[in-house]
């Protein structure tokens, strides 16, 4: 119990220290455009109360959810395919390695030349960032199946289908779930980049608009809210992961 309280106390202290330093930096101030934490918190509350934050998230989460759902189905499927078949691996691996290394902020605006400025481009931006992580994790999960387990299955006259369904997939499930969690983190980056670089909608609109009218507390509040939402979502998924795949 003492250990848990100790841990909580340190975690709380870390938050207090961070927000305290933010407040000091804002009051000093480090720049005329850097608001103290207290003003940012008030602005966040105002945006929650007037409904503008909720309205923005309803727009932002749409392409994020669609992109992650598509990646979850197609990305995991592709990763499993790459893990199970050498031909699929040779054909696809270079593409995903390049996508992982590519500077996406430079590539995302190019999507608009093909897919315009609507929802499709934003979903694609999420996919381009999230897919490589999800695919590569699924692929590695399949490839890293312990050889002794496969040998055991074969020595018991197990079929290829049984080998995949009963050994390979359950063994890879943990890593596939980790891929999904990391993919969601990349998806958050993707959607914010898309909303800032393609067309300002949702949370991207709140950031750009408040920046353009120099309402910096609201701009920082919008940024802080998306960081907080991403961090909380990932933390919850991590807890779920620990429970399901201890």
């Amino acid at each position, binding site marked *: 119990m003492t250990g848990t309280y100790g841990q909580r106390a340190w975690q709380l202290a870390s938050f207090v220290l961070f927000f305290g330093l933010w407040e000091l930096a804002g009051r000093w101030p480090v*720049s*005329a*455009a850097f608001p103290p934490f207290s003003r940012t918190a008030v602005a966040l509350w105002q945006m929650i109360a007037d409904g503008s934050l909720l309205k923005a998230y309803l727009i932002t989460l749409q392409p994020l959810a669609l992109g992650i759902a598509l990646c979850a189905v197609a990305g995991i499927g592709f990763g499993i395919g790459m893990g199970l078949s050498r031909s699929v691996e040779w054909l696809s691996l270079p593409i995903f390695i390049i996508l992982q290394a590519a500077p996406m902020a430079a590539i995302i605006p190019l999507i*608009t*030349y093909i897919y*315009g*400025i*609507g929802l499709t481009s934003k979903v694609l931006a999420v996919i381009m960032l999230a897919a490589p992580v999800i695919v590569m994790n699924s692929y590695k999960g399949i490839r890293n199946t312990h050889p002794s387990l496969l040998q055991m299955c074969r020595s018991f006259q197990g079929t290829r289908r049984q080998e995949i369904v009963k050994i390979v997939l359950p063994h890879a499930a943990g890593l596939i779930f980790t891929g999904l969690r990391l993919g969601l983190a990349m998806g958050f980056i993707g959607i914010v980049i898309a909303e800032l670089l393609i*067309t*300002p*909608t949702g949370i991207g*609109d709140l950031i*750009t*608009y408040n*920046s*353009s*009218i*120099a*309402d*910096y507390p609201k701009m920082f509040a919008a940024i802080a809210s998306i960081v907080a939402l991403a961090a909380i979502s990932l933390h919850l998924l991590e807890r779920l992961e620990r429970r399901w795949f201890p």
Partner: protein
Amino acid sequence: MRKLVSALAVLALSSGIASAQTKIKYALGDVIGIDDLPLLVAAERAKKRGVEIEITPFKNEDIATQAVINGQADVGQGTPYAAIENVNVPIRFFVQLWSLQFFPVVANEHYKGWKDLDNQEIAVQGRGSGTEAIMLLMAKTHGIKYKSVSYVPGSQVRALAMIKGNIRASILDNTNKNFLMREAPGKFTILPLGEVKASDESLFARLDYLQKNQAAVQVFVEELVRVNREINKNPMSIVEERKKLGLLKDLPAKLEEDVPTYFKDAVAGGIFPNDGGVESAPRNDLEFYALSGSIKKQSPKVDDYWHLAPLKAALSRLK
């Protein structure tokens, strides 16, 4: 006596050097394009008079404005009235470069006039931008209401999206209106626009900067006004100056053809003020940007947004 003379000579020389080193850090909220030619010419001439204009292009106007607010840049370009109202650092406009010249454009296939835009989607530069203000003003004038307003930064992006059919009604700057009409002849119509004379691009700086550096700012303003007057007298003068000074050397041939057209259209539209907008700009801006919602203050005063001393001093020298 000889020593005194040589000391005075050294002093004069060093003050000359100091004056030659006066630098104005200029934050441009866009890439340098054809429309910035008057600025580039003025900067070259100011340099010869000992005032170097160091132009840094930023990703967009907001970041350029932020650089001025933070003191990382001395002078910014644009019309950030809302920002000036919100920020706790006194920022003032001091000269108008040119007034608004935008063209509402619609796809012929779908719309013919303003009335057809009732309950339809339109695309503008950004929330609270001059382009949005114009489109809202026109909606009010024609008694229509848009279904939705999308924000698509960059006239070029909107023009390309119109060619691809992703946007059916928007508002473009002169360069991209010409580009659209050339790339897709007969497919788009320019809708008539009433008299809008507010600033499209004005220069602003921190008030303390303007007060401390009035001499350097005045030289720069003099050159800006001088170039505008030359263009108004003869739009082709800027083409000749560009060649003479070797400006925008890497301009693609296709865009090069647009330079004379752009300046002829601009002069015909009367967008370059001969007096830096000393009388008209503050008056028109306060009226227009209050209507657009950028200025929220009740009964706004010119002194709260403009500092006209360097412009007035420059005009008195130019007479």
